[in-house]
């Protein structure tokens, strides 16, 4: 016979009995043999339930839900997308397909363009046709200047700047044998093992330029490769310094993944910059000792991304933040091919494309007419990386940016800030940005221009001195872009520039791995996170991107 109070047992065990009733029940259970026995059995059952299997959301699940949501609620997406009455048919089309994967858009556009190309190429051509063609080329804005094709007679119809220029003679600069300078130490090239990262000496022969860059990024994770590149390009002794700076950055990361200089402004940019420093040294969210740090940082950026692709808020100088953060997302995507990053990265790239102003440049805000060369440099870099990862829809924007950049460049190679010959904070950092962007935006950069620009950069040391009184004259931003640009140039300018920059950057690093908070003229904006991420990035230059001229 069951005790009637036993019906209270489950509620009692679960703490669902009101305060006043608990004590009398407890006293009853203690005294009632039947209830004591039942209590133990119920307790065991509840405990067993607590041990039942549970599941964790699959990685990227929230992102899939977000995509499904975007597709299921077009009215929501319509509401939040910035619209301008002047949007062309191409942009409305783009806006419509914002949430279609970039590759699908690319395939559709390509099929369409190939069809048009076939019609055009198969029709007899007159001189008039040629003229009409060139008039189209004269206004490339948002034009679907698509894939590269050649006419049947081989003369070519449009200079496709991103057409891989086919096999070319290549003389690699292998390290020479120290005992016999005439003999290089080039090893025999073994068959490629698909499970091993690529040795940099192999991809030059095997890959076209863009694929080579992708292989390069993927191989950042390989310590042996990095060592080799350090030796090849003057990056010795920098490995431990980079490791210490990343250690410091990992320690100061906020719990939610962001890096901050104490205020909300620039947090997205600083997080992007810190992530670039980790990614540059081969740490991704799936690999390396800082995988968790990188993962949290990326998650923060994703949580800050708007439905229109913008990473961050549309406040202040947000195109800076967006550019830096997007570059970090793209690099992470290229390095890991993690499909969870594909959609966020490509929608961020699409935002950059649509934020370009009508003159082909970028300002602080969406389509701001006031050009900012520095902001634009980041966008060009990320567009090139997007193109390398297969998104050909960025080609018109990149072509236009290239044209804009050459308009900003004067006869000495100096690049203006808002306009040609305008240098409110000096011409050096801007020229460094412009020079690197020129290399990135052109498949065949203008060698004579690069010579001029290298000369400009070498006029002034980016790090004047490591003494505190010269901190306001130091310019890590210049050091960063100058190193990237001159690394691309190679030869004497690189040899003249880098050892000195490296020495000063190494000397000024603190024992904790960080650079002093006020180390340069821009550090008021980003504090020690900025100086440290920049310091690390400068030191990573020799193994961050491949030398494109190689």
């Amino acid at each position, binding site marked *: 016979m069951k005790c009637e109070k036993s019906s209270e047992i489950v509620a009692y065990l679960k703490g669902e009995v009101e305060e006043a009733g608990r004590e009398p029940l407890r006293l009853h259970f203690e005294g009632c043999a039947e209830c004591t026995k039942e209590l133990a059995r119920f307790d065991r059952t509840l405990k067993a339930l607590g041990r*039942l299997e549970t599941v964790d959301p699959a990685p990227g699940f929230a992102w899939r839900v977000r995509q499904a949501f975007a597709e299921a609620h077009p009215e*929501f997406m319509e509401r939040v997308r910035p619209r301008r009455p002047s949007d062309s048919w191409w942009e409305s089309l783009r806006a419509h397909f914002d949430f279609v994967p970039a590759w699908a858009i690319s395939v559709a556009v390509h099929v369409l363009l190939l069809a048009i190309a076939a019609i055009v190429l198969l029709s007899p051509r007159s001189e008039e046709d040629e003229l009409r063609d060139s008039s189209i080329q004269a206004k490339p804005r948002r034009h679907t200047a698509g894939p590269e094709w050649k006419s049947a007679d081989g003369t070519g119809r449009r200079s496709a700047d991103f057409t891989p220029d086919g096999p070319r003679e290549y003389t690699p600069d292998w390290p020479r044998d120290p005992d016999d300078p005439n003999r290089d130490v080039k090893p025999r090239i073994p068959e490629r093992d698909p499970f091993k990262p690529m040795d940099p000496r192999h991809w030059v022969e095997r890959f076209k330029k863009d694929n080579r860059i992708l292989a390069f990024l993927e191989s950042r994770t390989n310590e042996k490769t990095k060592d080799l590149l350090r030796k090849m390009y003057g990056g010795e002794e920098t490995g431990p310094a980079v490791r210490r700076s990343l250690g410091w950055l990992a320690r100061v990361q906020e719990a939610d993944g962001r890096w901050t200089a104490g205020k909300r402004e620039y947090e997205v940019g600083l997080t992007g910059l810190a992530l670039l420093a980790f990614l540059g040294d081969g740490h991704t969210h799936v690999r390396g000792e800082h995988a968790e740090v990188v993962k949290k940082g990326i998650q923060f950026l994703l949580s800050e991304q708007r439905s229109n692709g913008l990473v961050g808020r549309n406040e202040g100088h947000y195109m800076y933040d967006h550019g830096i953060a997007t570059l970090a997302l793209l690099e992470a995507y290229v390095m890991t091919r993690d499909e969870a990053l594909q959609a966020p990265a490509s929608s961020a790239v699409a935002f950059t494309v649509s934020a370009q102003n009508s003159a082909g440049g970028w300002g602080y805000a969406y389509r701001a007419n006031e050009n900012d060369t520095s902001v634009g440099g980041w966008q060009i870099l990320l567009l090139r990386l997007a193109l390398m990862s297969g998104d050909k829809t960025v080609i018109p924007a990149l072509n236009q940016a290239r044209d804009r950049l050459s308009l900003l460049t004067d006869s000495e190679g100096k690049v203006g800030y808002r306009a040609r010959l305008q240098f409110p904070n000096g011409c050096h950092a801007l020229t460094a940005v412009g020079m690197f962007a020129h290399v990135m935006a052109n498949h065949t950069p203008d060698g004579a221009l690069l010579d001029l620009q290298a000369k400009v950069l070498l006029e002034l040391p980016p790090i004047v001195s490591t003494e505190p009184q010269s901190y306001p004259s130091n310019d890590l931003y210049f050091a960063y872009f100058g190193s990237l640009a001159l690394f691309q140039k190679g030869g004497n300018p690189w040899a003249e520039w880098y050892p000195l920059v490296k020495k000063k950057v190494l000397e000024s690093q603190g024992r904790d791995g960080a650079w002093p908070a006020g180390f340069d003229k821009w550090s008021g904006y980003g504090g020690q996170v900025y100086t440290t991420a920049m310091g690390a990035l400068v030191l990573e230059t020799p193994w961050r991107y491949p030398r494109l001229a190689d």
Partner: protein
Amino acid sequence: MTSSGRSGPRSSWSDFELIQEIKKGDLGAFTALVERHQRSLLNFFFHNAWDRQTAEDCTQEVFLRLYSHLGSYEPQAKFTTFLYRVARNLWIDRMRAAASHPGPVSLETPAANGDEGVLRDRIRSREESPVEILEKRETHAALRTAIERLPEDQRMVLILSEMQGLKYKEIGEIMDVPVGTVKSRMHTAVERLKELMGDHEV
């Protein structure tokens, strides 16, 4: 595009603040809401369906449905109550759809004589009893089978209370029943499990 006066990461916002931002068109806030509740919802459906794929589909569906229901969400109510109401309704819809689907009769169909048993109970002898399963030392499988055999109402209370850790009062609100009913259903559910499990060590 929206910009809210709210500072700090979205992960630190309250559910209500996130919903306000979603209404304004902030997809990031939606993602933050998904990230916060995905695990509970996934397990809610997993313990109902015992199938990961179904659980993921349902979880996604709840978040998609949620948006249309946001208009009826009142800030006085706890968001999780609202969320589980949507989730439970979805699950009931699914069960109904499965029941109306031409095909074999579900073993979970209530037995005709009005007691809380289901058809499966009547044919218990034709399959392995929980005791037999226990003898194979598959404790969890046995418990799982036992939960599957609970009538829908009891199973829902059991999952919400024991697996999801909700209070009886909240469960009452989710299921539109008085707290007393939640309490008795929960007691009956655990008692049934206890019996089905027998006296074996669990």
